[in-house]
């Protein structure tokens, strides 16, 4: 059965690695629903968060292939409910609307969003949450006219107390010592 999986990849920060990673998905005709990349808590190690909709079997095999990439340190996969995850969305609506009625203000207040910037022409609203939450706000604002909308890729964090990678790196160091 297909479901959403979050694949987390820890890697060196080398040119071309993103391409090598996406090739693993492309070759199997798997679409990437979301992708974010940034430096992890460990300096010099980068973290990719990739969301795909696939079967467990296929995800396991993809992760196996990702770990074969020389510059990849470790890849993990989790179901959505195994991780705490967020996306951020920005909405631009006309400032005039805000003056005309209090509806926009109520929507913003009820959704836990916040206003980032107000100009004479527009206001920018920011909302973090799951995709369905940012989507819901979009739909609530849509009737009033959303001038621009953007949503980020997903970031996710495990429910375990420490970063899995730090445990992994300790084991890896000892393995590298053992192999001649």
């Amino acid at each position, binding site marked *: 059965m297909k479901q959403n999986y979050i694949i987390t990849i820890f890697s060196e920060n080398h040119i071309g690695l993103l391409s090598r990673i996406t090739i693993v998905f492309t070759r199997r005709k798997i679409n990437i629903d979301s992708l974010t990349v940034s430096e992890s808590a460990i300096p010099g190690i980068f973290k990719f968060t990739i969301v795909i909709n696939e079967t467990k079997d296929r995800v396991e095999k993809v992760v196996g292939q990702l*770990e074969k990439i020389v510059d990849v340190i470790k890849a993990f996969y989790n179901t959505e409910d195994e991780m705490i995850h967020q996306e951020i969305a920005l909405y631009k609506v006309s400032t005039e609307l805000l003056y005309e009625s209090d509806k926009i203000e109520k929507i913003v207040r009820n959704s836990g969003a916040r206003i980032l910037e107000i100009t004479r022409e527009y206001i920018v609203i920011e909302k973090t949450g799951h995709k369905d939450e940012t989507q819901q706000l979009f739909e609530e604002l849509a009737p009033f006219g959303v001038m621009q909308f953007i949503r980020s890729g997903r970031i996710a964090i495990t429910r375990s107390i420490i970063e899995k990678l730090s445990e992994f790196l300790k084991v890896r160091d000892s393995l590298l010592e053992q192999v001649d």
Partner: protein
Amino acid sequence: MATKRVSGSEAVILSLLEEGVDTIWGYPGGAIMPIYDALYDYDQQVTHILTRHEQGAIHAAEGYARVTGKAGVCFATSGPGATNLITGLADAQIDSIPLVCITGQVASPLLGTDAFQESDVVGITMPVTKWNFQVTQAEEIPEAIAKAFHIATTGRPGPVLLDIAKDAQFAQFDFEYKKCTKIRSYLPEYPVDPFAVKDAAELIDAAKKPLLLFGHGVILGGAEAELKEFIEKTGIPAAWTLLGLSALPSDHPLNVGMLGMHGNYGPNIKTNEADLIIAVGMRFDDRVTGKVSAYAPNAKIIHLEIDPAEINKIIKADVAVLGNAKKSLRLLIDNVKPNKHEAWLNEFRECDKIEHEKVIDKDLYPTKPGLTMGEVVRIASEKTNGDAILVTDVGQQQMIASRYFKFKQSRSNVTSGGLGTMGYSLPAAMGAKIGRPDRTVFAMAGDGGFQMTIQELGTISQYGIDLKIIVLNNNFLGMVRQWQQLFFEKRYSFTELKNPDFVGIAKAYGLEAAKVTSRDQLADAIQKMLDHKGPYLLEVVVEKEDNVFPMVPAGASVSDILLEP
């Protein structure tokens, strides 16, 4: 180590020498000219062989790597030079062949400008290399080459490619070389888990009908002696994949033959009767398993494998032993009880009898007038006492030769297994001969594959590479024709070839050559070829519409193997 001020180009050559490289295959061109200029001063330390096409260079490097166990090295220029390497890279990637390929690239300020002979080589080769890297500064060269050799030759080997911009080839810097032994993000192999070995040993000791399957991993891991010791201690019959061929002597009593589509009858049938499969350094390729859902239904599976991504990829392992085959087998030998499986082994011998009657005898000792590929292979094998290196192409002759050629030593069979690259044999055989000048090397090809890289006759002639080339000519793309006959109602769509005079072509290149059309000339012709000092081409005209049997039809289970149409 003292540093020396050199150009990037000279650093390339010095780095290769530091890695013990003695042979480079290549083809010069604009963007790699500085490296070729540096090479000019080192012709006493390293041999460069100029092929007639970059594909020839990379297949030769593969052949060299296969017989020596060292990384094969090749040079090509930017653009078309580099793109001509792609087939060889894909071949080496799927067959786990260690290669270090160096391509010239346009000067770094021109990158991305569609400069003359610029192509995105790092981008293009990414899916077909274990690792690749673009060098834009001379200072990066020693470290990149050290990493390249470490990655290519350790763990599950594979091809790597370095793309070196022309300005980096010219720039001067202080050269210092340090070998690479460790990369944080790369674990070549796992240490063998003794608990997994214990679990495996328990299954092995309890099995009544165990069958061992060995592949390329045994050869790559140098585990031939351990394989032999393991099967002799446990009495377990052993069957081989196409790339495992020659890891165990052909005449070993426990060697029960080839697996898969055109493999032997016994190992295919018995796979589905076995209660235990011990897979060593093999990856359950679809040509070996046939229909996966019907594969080895009664067997537990033990998988000894260096690459974690291969575990459970096709066939789920009950016990997986990660690590180098040599180390895994060594531990396993120490943990299993001595055993014999005479009755089980006899079942394989019975199958062998049936296969001899129905297929083998007719192939090897035909009575019909037309020559068979099988008898050519048999005579070539007999006349060299199993001591020769056999390099085959792809198709019918590859299957026939793999089935019937006899081997005494490992690293003696060179063929394109995973990719099935037609045109492989002639250039790969050049590499095999340069790698092992002490051995007789056969290059065997069909009339189709031979013409895909026929231009390498020029290389063979120029360097006097002493190959014994056998072209098995049936005027057809034989394997495709066989499938058309069996599965496409004999609709021979574009498989018949009008061939040139192969002997005339060989002679025009300055090679000795002869043509055989009848059985009474065959043995003498092969003897004459072997007695000749230097390269020799023998064209053998074989039966036009012979088929390779047994055969597991595509999509069928291995136990549905056919002995005849």
